């Protein structure tokens, strides 16, 4: 499993998004619960406002905690690991009226078109620079401008495939753009996730409100991505390039993948052949025609861009140049993010479209232009200072917050490197009410909208992602600083019902590809999702049996029950490689259940299961997150010393059963499933064989022998079948023979080794590995030849030898699968570009 660096992801949602001082009038309404008038004014619709008012504070607080729970269930995160931030949804949507939206939408569409024309020109004719319609410094000095991609063009009318725009209201209440995101515009998936949750926690209101739907936008995105494929292909292959499961927006990438129906790939999954990017896999290698890039351009191609990147596809630029792949947004689109460009957009709109800009931009000055530098220095204390690029300076500075000394330092910094600075007029009055325990409180809000190219124009997501400051006094609104988010409701025009983008809401009739190539990283993680899920399940069952026995017989040495307990504990110790539990079974079993830091424990298996699931979250049903969340919570509760383990084990097993069900019922039976089920089957075959080896096979006094065998049957969920068969006079009566039959040779019992081997063979057929399938079938034949009946009476050493051999064979098979299907790419190196490599400058030696 990979652990990539995440540099490439950048603080995608963390742009310094801000506005000016808070308006006083709304602040005064913050204390007590509010009247419809205030809500109406703020959220934009009197009808919605009345309904919200009717909910009352109690209703809103309930909705807030419900939203919190749903976020946890859906596994919505921003960032992972130590940098994970809870995704917080305020239940009150930001409501935008029909007419207001129509104006905004037209402005956003026009803005996207202008940005597209600028982008096309900058990597084509560069007329804007040659005729100085844009200062060349503004473009050529920006880190987002990549000379390496000069001349590359996507097929189709538009080069800019996606753009996100951050907006605040100006002092007249009109929406004003403060920034554009064109590098890796993120957030549309979060907007969709917010909608799903808000529509549940505000169900009544959502049902009654005629709302523009979001789904159509993603269908358009899908159509557009298919349409930019380099050649006229029937079925272009599209993939999302992710920086990895450690990416801040890993949740969104996986979610988008399911919304769009395109797989997620990482650098490790890709190989370049014949100047074309392919998904690598053991049995076939498939070219990718279109790449939706979630990796910053600088990290996207170690050959032509940052050589230290392990997040990109080697030769991606060359493949693009050769017309073998289309990258969206194209590499180099990041140059449009320059705040300095904002100042020029009105004039560019006139020059390029012959129209006035419909959507205003916040007045912005760039220090790279002489007038701009002077303006920045003269107005330092009232401007919002931003870097010329986020690469140079990711944070914004608020002039009015600076001390005199800090201001002097800033002025000196600007004077020294003026081109690195831009200054923006603060926008005064953009707030939205937020549900707090003390009632609704106004907070600064930024609206992020999303546009996607469609034919020659753009489709705007009828909604967006609203982000609200975490604290009343906060100007910086960034997910990294704990901002809240809101769903954005665009009211549908009267009489249109709920449909808005009718054209694009039709399901796209693109046939799905059969059996896509499964990259080794994906195969590896799916296999281990299967293995750890099964390991946890088997272990939980055995722990339950062991705990019961300890409870009943722990204090009764000398009884057959105590001997049985000892046998099960020994089996547990062997299976988990934890011999220490035999000394104190009570403490031992607790540790085996709860200690996540030790290999072999149940908690450890669950942790690894969750880890593997994160790596392939796009492959699995979203439902799994609800259960994984519950499972994690069940393991986090540490019971009091005297408390029984049973209730906790029951809860854990319940979740594991649910996971098994989700996995079994939500996956198409293709190679993906083959790896997952192969993992389950191999694990269960090994564990069942080991269980038999350590319980049934050891010869004991007949009375103990029978109880031990029944414990093994109990732990393997086969005790009922055993009893039913015994009563009906079917099958061997001796528990030992019955256990060996049911758990080893009986192909009809889904818990038997034979059954696992048959399923394993089928799984290997699915993944296209006839060698492994044949091996599994040969082992199956061996297993079915075993004479289980004879075990009760005869010598069991032969069985022991057989099970040991089987165990070795299964380990070999596992190693074969790992070697053939999970092979890592050879290590990437950059041929040093240092001049230690070139023979040194001529001259002096030869003087």
């Amino acid at each position, binding site marked *: 499993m990979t652990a990539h660096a995440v540099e490439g992801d950048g603080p995608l949602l963390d742009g310094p998004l801000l506005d000016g001082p808070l308006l006083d009038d709304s602040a005064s309404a913050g204390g007590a619960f509010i009247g419809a008038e205030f809500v109406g004014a703020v959220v934009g619709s009197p009808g919605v406002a009345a309904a919200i008012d009717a909910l009352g504070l109690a209703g809103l607080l309930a909705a807030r905690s419900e939203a919190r729970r749903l976020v946890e269930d859906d596994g919505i995160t921003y960032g992972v690991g130590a940098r994970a931030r809870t995704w917080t949804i305020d239940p009150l949507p930001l409501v935008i009226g029909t007419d207001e939206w129509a104006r905004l939408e037209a402005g956003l569409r026009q803005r996207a078109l202008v940005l597209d024309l600028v982008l096309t020109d900058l990597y084509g004719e560069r007329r804007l620079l040659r005729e100085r319609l844009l200062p060349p410094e503004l473009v*050529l000095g920006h880190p987002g401008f990549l000379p390496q991609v000069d001349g590359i063009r996507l097929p189709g009318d538009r080069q800019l495939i996606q753009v996100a725009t951050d907006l605040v209201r100006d002092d007249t209440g009109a929406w004003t753009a403060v920034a554009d995101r064109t590098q890796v515009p993120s957030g549309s998936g979060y907007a969709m996730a917010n909608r799903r949750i808000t529509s549940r926690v505000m169900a009544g209101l959502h049902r009654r409100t005629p709302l523009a739907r979001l789904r159509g936008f993603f269908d358009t995105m899908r159509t557009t991505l298919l349409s930019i494929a380099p050649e006229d292909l029937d079925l272009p292959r599209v993939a999302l390039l992710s920086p990895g499961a450690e990416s801040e927006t890993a949740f969104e990438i996986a979610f988008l993948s399911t919304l769009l129906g395109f797989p997620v790939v990482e650098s490790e999954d890709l190989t370049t052949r014949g100047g074309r990017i392919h998904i690598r896999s053991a049995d076939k290698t498939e070219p990718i025609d279109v790449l939706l890039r979630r990796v910053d351009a600088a990290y996207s191609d170690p*050959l032509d861009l940052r050589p230290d990147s392990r997040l990109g596809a*080697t030769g991606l630029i060359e493949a693009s140049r050769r017309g073998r792949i289309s990258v969206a947004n194209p590499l180099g689109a990041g140059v449009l993010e320059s705040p300095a460009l904002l100042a020029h957009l009105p004039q560019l709109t006139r020059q390029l479209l012959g129209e006035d800009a419909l959507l205003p931009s916040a007045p912005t000055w760039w220090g790279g232009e002489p007038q701009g530098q002077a303006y920045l220095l003269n107005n330092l204390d009232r401007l919002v200072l931003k870097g010329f690029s986020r690469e140079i300076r990711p944070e914004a500075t608020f002039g009015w917050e600076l001390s005199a000394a800090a201001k002097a330092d800033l002025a000196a910094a600007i004077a020294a490197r003026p081109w690195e600075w831009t200054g923006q007029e603060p926008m005064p009055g953009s707030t939205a009410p937020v549900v707090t325990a003390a009632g609704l409180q106004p907070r600064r809000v930024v609206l992020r909208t999303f546009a996607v190219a469609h034919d020659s124009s753009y489709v705007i997501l009828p909604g967006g992602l609203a982000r609200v400051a975490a604290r009343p006094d906060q100007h910086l609104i960034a997910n990294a600083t704990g901002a809240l988010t809101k769903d954005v409701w665009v009211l549908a025009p009267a009489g249109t019902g709920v449909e808005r983008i009718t054209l694009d809401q039709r399901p796209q009739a693109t046939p799905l590809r059969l059996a896509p190539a499964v990259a080794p990283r994906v195969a590896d993680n799916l296999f281990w999702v299967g293995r750890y899920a099964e390991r946890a399940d088997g272990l939980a069952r055995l722990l339950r049996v062991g705990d019961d026995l300890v409870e009943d017989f722990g204090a009764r040495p000398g009884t057959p029950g105590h001997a049985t307990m000892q046998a099960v504990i020994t089996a547990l110790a062997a299976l988990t490689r934890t011999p220490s539990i035999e000394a104190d079974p009570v403490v031992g079993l607790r540790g085996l259940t709860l200690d996540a830091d030790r290999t072999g424990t149940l908690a450890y298996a669950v942790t690894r299961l969750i880890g593997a699931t994160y790596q392939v979250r796009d492959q699995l049903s979203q439902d799994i997150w609800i259960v994984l969340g519950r499972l994690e919570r069940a393991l986090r509760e540490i019971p009091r010393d005297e408390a029984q383990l049973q209730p906790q084990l029951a809860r854990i097993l319940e979740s594991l059963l649910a996971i098994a069900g989700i996995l079994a019922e939500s996956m198409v039976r293709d190679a993906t499933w083959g790896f997952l089920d192969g993992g389950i089957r191999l694990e269960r075959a090994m564990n069942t064989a080991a269980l038999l080896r350590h319980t049934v096979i050891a010869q004991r006094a007949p009375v103990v022998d029978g109880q031990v065998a029944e414990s093994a049957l109990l732990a393997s969920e086969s005790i009922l079948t055993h009893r039913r068969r015994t009563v009906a006079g079917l099958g061997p009566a001796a528990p030992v023979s019955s256990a060996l039959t049911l758990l080893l040779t009986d192909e009809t019992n889904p818990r038997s080794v034979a059954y696992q081997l048959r399923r394993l063979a089928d799984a290997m057929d699915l993944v296209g590995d006839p060698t492994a399938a044949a091996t599994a079938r040969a082992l199956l034949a061996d297993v079915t030849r075993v004479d289980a009946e004879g075990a009760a009476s005869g010598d069991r050493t032969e069985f022991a030898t057989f099970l040991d051999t089987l165990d070795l064979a299964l380990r070999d098979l596992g190693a074969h699968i790992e070697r053939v299907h999970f092979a890592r790419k050879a290590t990437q190196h950059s041929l040093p570009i240092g001049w230690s490599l070139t023979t040194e400058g001529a*001259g002096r030696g*030869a003087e």
Partner: protein
Amino acid sequence: MAQSDADFLPRTYRVRHTTRYTYDEDVVGCYERGFLSLRPTPTQTLRAIEVTVSPEPDVNAAHWDFFGNESFYVEVRTPHTTFEATMDAEVAVDWAPVDVAALDRLTVAESVAAIRAEDVDPVLETAYRLPSALVELGPRVAEFADTILAPERALGEALTDLYRTIYRDFAYRKGATSVRTTLPEILDLRAGVCQDFAHLAIGALRSVGLPARYVSGYIETAPPPGKAKLAGSDATHAWVSVRVPGGGWVDLDPTNDHFADSRYIVTAWGRDFRDVSPLKGVIFTEAKHSTLDVAVDVTRLEAPTRDA
């Protein structure tokens, strides 16, 4: 390296440049970006060129890049422990001596203004005036430029002083610097190699507002007196080209203390070394060790003549 009038006579060279990597284990994928040709310029004409790569590449393609160089992409997927790329070119070279007196008609400040007013190529001239990855502009570089490229100084005199000062005050020392060495560090070290001296000169020129580019190429060397020239003993080289009033560019070589002459053969130019690194690549291998051998031969094919 001394310069005489004869060095400005036109001549034809054969340039052979071999880059060989050897590894202790197979490389299973090799992707290279490089400048394996000679740039067509007013001072040189390419007569013939052959580029050979071994093992046989799966892709060997070229395009003209943003800076007007021919940029090669080479992909080799045949597992190999030796990679070799050879350029074998024949080129006619003819540089005229720089007319320093003509340059002296304008001061540095007047030249900067004149070039801005001419505005011949707003795109590339801007690119060559801005700081770049390896040419950071800052107070140290500005201070270095201050006296040498003082505004009131005559341009020809100032440019001459620029290469002279670097030649005089900086020691040529291999290994003293790396690709990460910054200009302030070079100013402290007072040492470096041709790439460093070129970057420093470019930094000085840009900090007073003159567009300056990094030129990558070759130079013919003479063996020590009385010794025969050794095969493969020539070298890649780097120097500086600066925009001067009237639309032209003047090439100066701070490593060798003069303006360029007909011994200078151009591969490619860009903002700095990063844009024109001769051959860089990404390889996939479990090899632990690699060695690099570079052999360059610059051989005169015909005697220099003015009237040929």
